[in-house]
């Protein structure tokens, strides 16, 4: 809901401020946009992560997500973009965007108990260690952060083509772990209760240097005095992921309008 409200506010400011900016600014070699988009994160290849070799407690982080399935998710981006003319129809584009995205890994309880889990064993049953990462059935990572694109923009007729990288300097990460817990009985056959789950949330801030290749196409569109740039984007991410993104950008300060004639 908060994203929708922010989007509406941005839309309103784009319409009102954009018109004023065009009137007041004369000939400039830049454009300023405010935009919002909805990226959809998906993956190349299979979403299920095949096991490699049998894991052990010592190299857990290498096999952490094996036998888990990655879940495609929607995200959200919004912010300001600046486009600066460098040569005829070529521009350099940068800006600052807020982004929200998620990474979800899920495995079924039976798989976790059969292959991953560890517990406190007795002769007849095993008490799964509460709150231990080996007993996780779902990882839910939520990222809120700053994204700074650096792209080259080429304009051809009403189409705009962008290519470059997105740089993410700071990210607020909220990790929620869902654990299976309880007792696994051995005899005569293994019996366990998959409804017995617990959760834990860990929050952290990551200052990092992440660059991801990004491409985008937009179209110059005008409704009365309102300029719009609907766009489609494609970003490469980590772990064979990609983002398909669609959204709208609104030019705020735009140098393309003829300057006002001098007042006599």
């Amino acid at each position, binding site marked *: 809901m908060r994203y929708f409200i922010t989007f509406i506010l941005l839309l309103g400011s784009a319409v009102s401020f954009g018109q004023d900016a065009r009137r007041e600014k004369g000939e400039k070699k830049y454009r300023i946009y405010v935009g919002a988009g909805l990226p959809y994160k998906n993956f190349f290849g299979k979403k299920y992560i095949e096991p490699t070799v049998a894991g052990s*407690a010592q190299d857990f982080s290498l096999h952490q997500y094996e036998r888990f399935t990655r879940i495609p998710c929607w995200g959200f981006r919004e912010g300001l973009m600046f486009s600066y003319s460098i040569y005829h129809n070529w521009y350099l584009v940068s800006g600052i965007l807020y982004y929200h995205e998620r990474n979800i890994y899920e495995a079924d309880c039976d798989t976790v108990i059969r292959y991953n889990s560890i*517990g406190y*064993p007795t002769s007849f049953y095993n008490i799964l260690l509460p709150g231990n990462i080996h007993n996780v059935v779902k990882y839910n990572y939520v990222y809120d952060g700053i994204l700074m694109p650096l792209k080259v923009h080429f304009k051809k007729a009403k189409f705009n083509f962008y290519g470059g990288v997105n740089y993410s300097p700071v990210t607020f990460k909220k990790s929620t772990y869902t654990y299976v817990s309880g007792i696994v009985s051995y005899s005569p056959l293994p019996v366990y209760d998959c409804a017995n789950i617990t959760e834990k949330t860990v929050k952290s801030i990551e200052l990092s240097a992440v660059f991801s290749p990004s491409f985008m196409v937009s179209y110059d569109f005008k409704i009365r005095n309102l300029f719009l740039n609907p766009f489609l984007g494609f970003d490469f991410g*980590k772990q064979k992921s990609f983002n398909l993104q669609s959204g709208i950008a609104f030019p705020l300060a735009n140098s393309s309008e003829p300057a006002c004639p001098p007042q006599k």
Partner: protein
Amino acid sequence: MGPEYFKHYTGVKINFKICCLIAAFSVFMPGCRKSPFDYRSQYTGTYQFLVSEKISIPGVSYTDTAFYYSGSIETGQGTKSILLNFLENTSIETELHEDGSFEKCDCPYNVYGYISYDKNLTGDFYSGKKVKMLYEYTDSTAIFSYYILGEKTE
């Protein structure tokens, strides 16, 4: 908004080839990540441990005591390991997982069977300042079991 839309753009004198090179470099630059903050640092420090000790000699005796021990948790030699000093003459290094849990044991990895062990440490941080652990070991004479609650003092 057509081609005239941008007709007033004249550009500035920037070397076009250099710009293309920079753009191409940035597009094909491999993704990289480094974490300047060590996630273990929120857990390391000096701790006051409340230790519940149970010593059992099967068929002979059983003692149950509790005491405080001033110890510490430090970063280990591995990039993800921590060093736990929670008992006199006991120092254990183990991998700290991203969720704040850890274990060091001859644990059964797949639990469809009983696997015995001689020494076992499991635990997790349930806040940046509190940790709970279970530590057990056996020797030729007895079974030692410790349930430990630790709170960071600085």
